[in-house]
């Protein structure tokens, strides 16, 4: 399927518009079949805009093959500002929630709310929050060990195989919590989310995802 392409930084993202001001943020590192299924669900159920984050087919890979939650967040902010052009609700799964929270803190004027879905059942980064955030050290040793030998060729599914090892750098948890504390948009969670303790209690509200039909 040909999807519209949009360039952010030096990476092309595949973006599919939706009828509502809702953007679905998938769990990074999630296998393609699982990702497509979740994004299809987001399109059909909530009328969401969907996109594949950098490194995930059919979007392009990052030159240098470094993927951090903050890189994904910068892409999301640019998508919200430059493509959608209107304030949106972010629906995010697993570690996509970390991406959404960082984007909402960086661009509070274009995020109307956050709905975070737990990543417990996902095979992506969100299945193990220690892969994406850490109190002190921020290197992901698995990435460092893999980067030397990981083939530069695409895996058969088109994703960058380095994504399987998690982000190159974990986010510094105190900095993430400080960012989350600056959130101005209401947030809700379903099924629990590892970011819940970081999120400001005053902004907790029912962020309903009204089905499109």
């Amino acid at each position, binding site marked *: 399927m040909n999807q519209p392409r949009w360039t952010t930084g*030096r990476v092309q993202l595949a973006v599919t518009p939706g009828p509502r001001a809702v953007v679905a943020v998938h769990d990074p590192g999630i296998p393609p079949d699982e990702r497509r299924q979740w994004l299809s669900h987001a399109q059909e159920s909530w009328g969401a805009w969907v996109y594949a984050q950098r490194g995930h087919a059919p979007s392009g890979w990052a030159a240098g093959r470094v993927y*951090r939650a*903050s890189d994904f967040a910068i892409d999301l902010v640019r998508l919200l500002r430059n493509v959608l052009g209107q304030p949106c609700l972010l629906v995010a799964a697993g570690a996509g929630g970390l991406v959404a929270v960082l984007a909402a803190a960086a661009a509070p004027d274009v995020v109307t709310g956050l709905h975070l879905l737990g990543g417990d059942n996902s095979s992506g980064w969100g299945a193990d929050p220690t892969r994406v955030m850490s109190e002190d050290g921020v290197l*992901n040793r698995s990435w460092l060990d893999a980067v*030397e030998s990981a083939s530069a060729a695409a895996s058969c599914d088109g994703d960058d195989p380095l994504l399987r090892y998690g982000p190159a750098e974990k986010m510094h948890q105190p900095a993430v919590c400080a960012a989350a*504390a600056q959130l101005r948009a209401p947030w809700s969670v379903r099924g629990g989310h590892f970011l819940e303790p970081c999120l400001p209690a005053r902004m907790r509200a029912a962020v309903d995802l009204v089905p499109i039909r």
Partner: protein
Amino acid sequence: MQPEWPVPQARSAVVSRGLELSLCEWGDVSSAGLVLVGAHGFLDCAEFFAPLVMALHERCADLAFVAMSFAGHGRSSWADTYGWYDHTADLLAVTRAVRTRARDGARLGLIGHSFGAVQVLQALTFEPRLAEFAVNLDAVSPPFSMQNDGLPEVLAHLAARGGDIRPLPTYGDLDAIVQRRAASNPRLPVTLLRWLAPHLVREQDGRYAWRVDPALAGWVRPWDLAGSPPVDPLELTAALPHPVLTVTGAAPDHPQVRGHYPGDAAIDSRPGSRHCRLPDAGHYVHLECPDQVAAAVLGHAGHPAGEQPA
């Protein structure tokens, strides 16, 4: 008469993360008894080690020096974004490649200046067996960074720069490049800057453009992207099993310390570290006092031509 610094005897490359990292080689890695891998400072390039290489080779013929240009610098490839540990991974990849080419029994050391020095110390914390010793050229305090709650501001700033990263200014001739660089580094001899200029820029549409990825320029530093605190080189030094030589410039007008020197006592108190303090040097110790740095490095490497640092 203008001094002539040695041009690299070979240029090679190592691929890391799909990026081609450019290397300058002086001496024969496969036969030298002492091999040094050099990591330059932020926004510099591999050729910045040429004056030190000349001073080293005047004292020691049995030496090979391989200097890398970090991603986004010099003749190396540009990445999409630049984090702290991707540079570390690149330095490790280069050092592994050099180690493989070195002869059995060769002593291998890592030497870095400023940003590159902290990367040297960082790399050895992950793979201490890659080198026998390390040299830190004037990186004695954590780099400047954002405030603890500054992550959203950093991300907003980067997002606002948009897809088309603004190009850096271009210049009409090499003299303008020399003047610009001299304004930032007033202690560096103009003759040396003239020699370095062709390595710092490339010709583009009849003008000269920096060989630096514009994504690296500006106030955001790589360590900001993960929200992590900047790395303290003295803590890294203390954590390493290697002997670490730290060479610092102590000139009163050292531009980087801005009147506040982090303290020689802090360096000297680190177990296993050795400190060479150069009263006539600023931040670029290896360019301002290459002979003294070469003597200290060779002494640290256990070479008879070296001197023990004072």
